[in-house]
């Protein structure tokens, strides 16, 4: 089944980033920055919300997720789910805890960015990953 979109034509030309962050006061400005940079951004507060979006067939080109999420499933678990269920979607993982980021098996589909981050650095990493 193909992705659903509202009737907006422009959605077809914009890459979609699924932003997973439980801290609203960080999720919102990050989302707004990426929208201003030209991305369509879907916001999820938990890994289970992210999976609900992915499983609904909504088009997602890249996942940008915090490792440390409030609920039982963290960013590592979300990356594993993605590798098993949507292996074509790359994930960029972020954390303030460098040890957590060291556990990530970085590869073609998985990259890391430490917190706190500059929003311009986030946009740059996403652009790089999507151009591969």
């Amino acid at each position, binding site marked *: 089944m193909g992705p659903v979109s*509202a009737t907006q034509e422009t959605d077809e030309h914009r890459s979609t980033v699924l932003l997973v962050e439980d801290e*609203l006061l960080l999720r919102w400005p990050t989302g707004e920055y990426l929208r201003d940079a030209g991305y369509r951004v879907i916001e999820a507060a938990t890994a289970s919300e992210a999976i*609900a979006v992915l499983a609904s067939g909504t088009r997602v080109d890249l996942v940008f997720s915090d490792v440390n999420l409030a609920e039982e499933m963290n960013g590592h678990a979300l990356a594993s789910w993605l590798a098993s269920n949507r292996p074509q979607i790359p994930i960029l993982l972020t954390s303030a805890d460098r040890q957590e980021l060291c556990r990530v098996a970085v590869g073609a589909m998985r990259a890391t960015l430490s917190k706190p981050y500059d929003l311009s650095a986030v946009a740059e990493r996403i652009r790089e990953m999507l151009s591969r």
Partner: protein
Amino acid sequence: MPTASSFETRTVVVVEPDVLVRMVIAEYLRDCGYKVIEAAGSTEVWAVLDGGHAVDVLLIEVSLPGAENGFELAHRIRQTRREVDVILTSGVAGSVQQSHELCEEGPIKTPYEPKDVESRIKILLERRRAAKKT
């Protein structure tokens, strides 16, 4: 009547626990020209309000999980933040209808039909139901 330019920075907080509904409603309101903050529940709403962010309208789904439901949240905001408009919604059709009315007042008049917004949400919810069965 306010002019279109006075709406440029109008901020709507969409308070909706279901990510699939929230995603579509938020996108619709953004396409109507609003700034949209997406909140999954009352804790996130208070983080925004107590953080001193300028908010013009809150669109609140009545059935919110957690300590404070939509009615209670709306009541507390109306008592303490009289400058903010509070709109209560119930169910997908209600959220779409209220968003459509906001769109009509917004800087960009209804970029697409509200019935398309509602059917998009229904398709997503149906796919989720189907995925759970398998």
